[in-house]
């Protein structure tokens, strides 16, 4: 059947059916647009778990629902979208007019119509900002906690098929910010981290997802931050190319550092020592990963951060801790790492070549970050290694950068 064959009345029937399905199963946790030919694949994939009555009740060629999974046929998308948009816009116009009438506090049935149409519309067009906004307006007016929680569920449902939807992520932040005075906040935050991990698992290096998790850090308690650092470690070691996860760890570590600076006034050197150990642990763990996974850019960038921060702040800023920072032996250790990574056993083996480039740029980058007179020390030690030749050979497209660095050393 062609898309144009749908009359307005038929399209409205489709919309009603979609809204009925959405209303009857509030636990739907995934939506997919499915070509009609794939409906049979779905039946097989879902297996024979449901009773035959369930199947006959919900099965037609337009929608498919089972185990809280909703499939929508790609053939009805256009008429369905048009009907949903039309119904939503009409209800919204009417609502705005009634809102403006003196003495009117809004119409309950219009509000539920908007909630229902906007939900259907967002299933089809996840970044339809006006639909998200109308929901915010109504939820804010009602001030009922369960309604706020429902918004988180809807956003999660949309993210199940559109994990990069900016509006869906932003809607979550609006909900969390709005309920942040409520005691439920801490529970929500735990759930958010799990959601991001679940989405990041199948939507690799999803900037929006990780950005959301970074945003949450400022709402976390001290304990939650420490717990998150512990918890995200395993995920990171299984996804060593995902720079976003390592950035999340950097964000957590900087937050811990801020907390340390605040508590310094209380002379709680125990916490300082804990922090020192966290940083040292991260450096050791990162080194182990670098040696296990050859040539991963994200791991080396993480090391740039760890080392430069270590030299600049931790060694000098943490007072009252009974350790001596030995700059010389730290650098010797890094140079040892460089030497073990910059030999290319076989020119054809790309990973080792990448490892050599990353290790060489790491040490040159770090040198730039260190102030004199320590910088001169390292430059002396690097001169013997002739890194410039290595960099110019393995990475000729950045030769101007290498030349510029060499010139600045003179």
């Amino acid at each position, binding site marked *: 059947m062609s*898309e144009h064959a749908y009359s307005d009345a038929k399209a409205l029937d489709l919309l009603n059916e979609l809204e009925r399905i959405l209303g009857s199963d509030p636990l739907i946790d*995934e*939506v*997919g647009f*499915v*070509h009609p030919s*794939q409906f049979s694949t*779905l039946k097989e*994939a879902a297996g024979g778990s449901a009773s035959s009555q369930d199947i006959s009740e919900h099965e037609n060629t337009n929608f498919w629902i089972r185990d*809280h*999974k909703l*499939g929508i046929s*790609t053939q009805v*998308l*256009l008429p369905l*979208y*048009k009907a949903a948009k039309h119904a939503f*816009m009409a209800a919204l*116009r009417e609502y705005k007019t009634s809102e403006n009438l003196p003495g009117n506090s809004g119409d309950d049935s219009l509000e539920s119509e908007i909630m229902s149409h906007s939900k259907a519309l967002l299933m*089809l*067009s996840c*970044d*339809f*900002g*006006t639909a998200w*906004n109308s929901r915010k307006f109504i939820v804010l007016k009602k001030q009922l906690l369960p309604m706020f929680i429902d918004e988180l569920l809807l956003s999660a449902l949309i993210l*199940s*098929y559109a994990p990069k939807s900016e509006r869906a992520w*932003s809607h979550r*932040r*609006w909900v969390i*910010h709005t309920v942040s005075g409520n005691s439920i906040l801490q529970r929500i935050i735990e759930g958010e981290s799990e959601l991001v991990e679940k989405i990041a698992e*199948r939507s690799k*290096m999803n*900037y929006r997802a*990780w*950005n959301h998790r*970074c*945003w949450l850090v*400022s709402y976390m308690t001290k304990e939650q931050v420490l717990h998150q650092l512990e918890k995200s470690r395993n995920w990171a070691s299984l996804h060593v*190319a*995902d*720079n*976003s996860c390592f*950035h999340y760890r*950097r964000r957590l570590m900087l*937050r811990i550092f801020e907390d340390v600076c605040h508590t310094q006034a209380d002379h709680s050197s125990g916490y300082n020592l804990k922090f020192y150990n966290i940083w040292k642990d991260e450096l050791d763990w990162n080194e182990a990963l670098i040696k296990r996974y050859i040539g*991963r*850019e*994200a791991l080396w960038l993480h090391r*740039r*951060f760890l080392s*430069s921060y270590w030299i600049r702040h931790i060694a000098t800023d943490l007072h009252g801790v009974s350790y001596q920072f030995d700059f010389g032996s730290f650098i010797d250790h890094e140079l040892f790492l460089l030497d073990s990574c910059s030999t290319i056993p076989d020119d054809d083996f790309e990973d080792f070549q990448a490892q050599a480039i990353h290790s060489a740029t790491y040490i040159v*980058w770090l040198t*730039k970050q260190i102030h004199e007179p320590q910088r001169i020390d390292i430059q002396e030690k690097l001169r013997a290694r002739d890194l410039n030749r290595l960099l110019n050979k393995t990475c000729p*497209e*950045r030769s*101007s*950068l290498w030349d*510029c660095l060499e010139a600045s050393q003179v």
Partner: protein
Amino acid sequence: MPLLFYHIRPEAIPKTRYLMGELAADKHVKYIISIEKKKDNFESVVMEHLRMNGAYWGLTTLDLLGKLDAMMEVLFVGGFAGNIGHDPHILYTLSAVQVLALFDKLDVLDIDKVSNYISGLQNEDGSFSGDIWGEVDTRFSYIAVCCLSILHRLDKVDVDNAVNYIVSCKNLDGGFGCTPGGESHAGQIFCCVGALAITGALHHVDKDLLGWWLCERQVKSGGLNGRPEKLPDVCYSWWVLSSLIMIDRVHWISKEKLVKYILGCQDLENGGISDRPDDAVDIFHTYFGVAGLSLLEYPGLKAIDPAYALPDDVVKRIFFAHRHCRSDLSLARRRLLLKLAVVFCN
């Protein structure tokens, strides 16, 4: 319950390409005009909230190709216009202002109304919200600064504070994120560096450090990625390249390899440019590809300003030319331009 639909999605079908070598300018013009005419399928209607941005991408590309006239007719028959009935958002405001600037028709705007809308979105910490619902992002800072500068109304906001907020989003790698503590991303870096360039505050940028991060975005194929370990994508030819130009470090990448990469992403048969060779083309990547080539001084293209993302001659006209008297606009034209303006003024 594990995800179900995720595993049964059909894979995108690769397109056949001809050998490449040079910019197929005429094909791209045809492609841009053709999208405007074809709007009744699901893929295009669900993008309707972006129509204003689409107008900017399409029209700027045509101007860089020296073919803006080709669009005049299509546009004034009804064309892109804005989308009435949608809530205003700062994202659409910039595209609309840029489109009007392209046509030298900023005078159809109620400039005070637009600039009041933008300045009303500035928060106490100097950041900007995208709309009344309060989402904050350094992209919105760029849009606010860029729009107000084009409209000669930067004095309507606290510029120092706006700069302070952007600086607070700087990371230890020299890059910038959406909010303080957010991961560095080439698109966000463009917004932050662009806003700092427009406000004369580039001294806040550690040029060597940021330049280093940006030039490491170039991968073996010559293309640029937007973050470490990501695949290259034509759109970063714009975000990374313009940032490198603004901080004077563009010589740190190989321009020749990048030109080759962009040209390799053309659909030589039907026009348009895609994110990577052999992917499907779209208007967004067509604009960024052509704009990137313009920054790389590819022959036959107009020069584009790296901060304002508008052709150089348009920027010169905005800031250096005296406003001439309003030319005779036909009624149809004026009606259309007002329609464009209404999106963000309602």
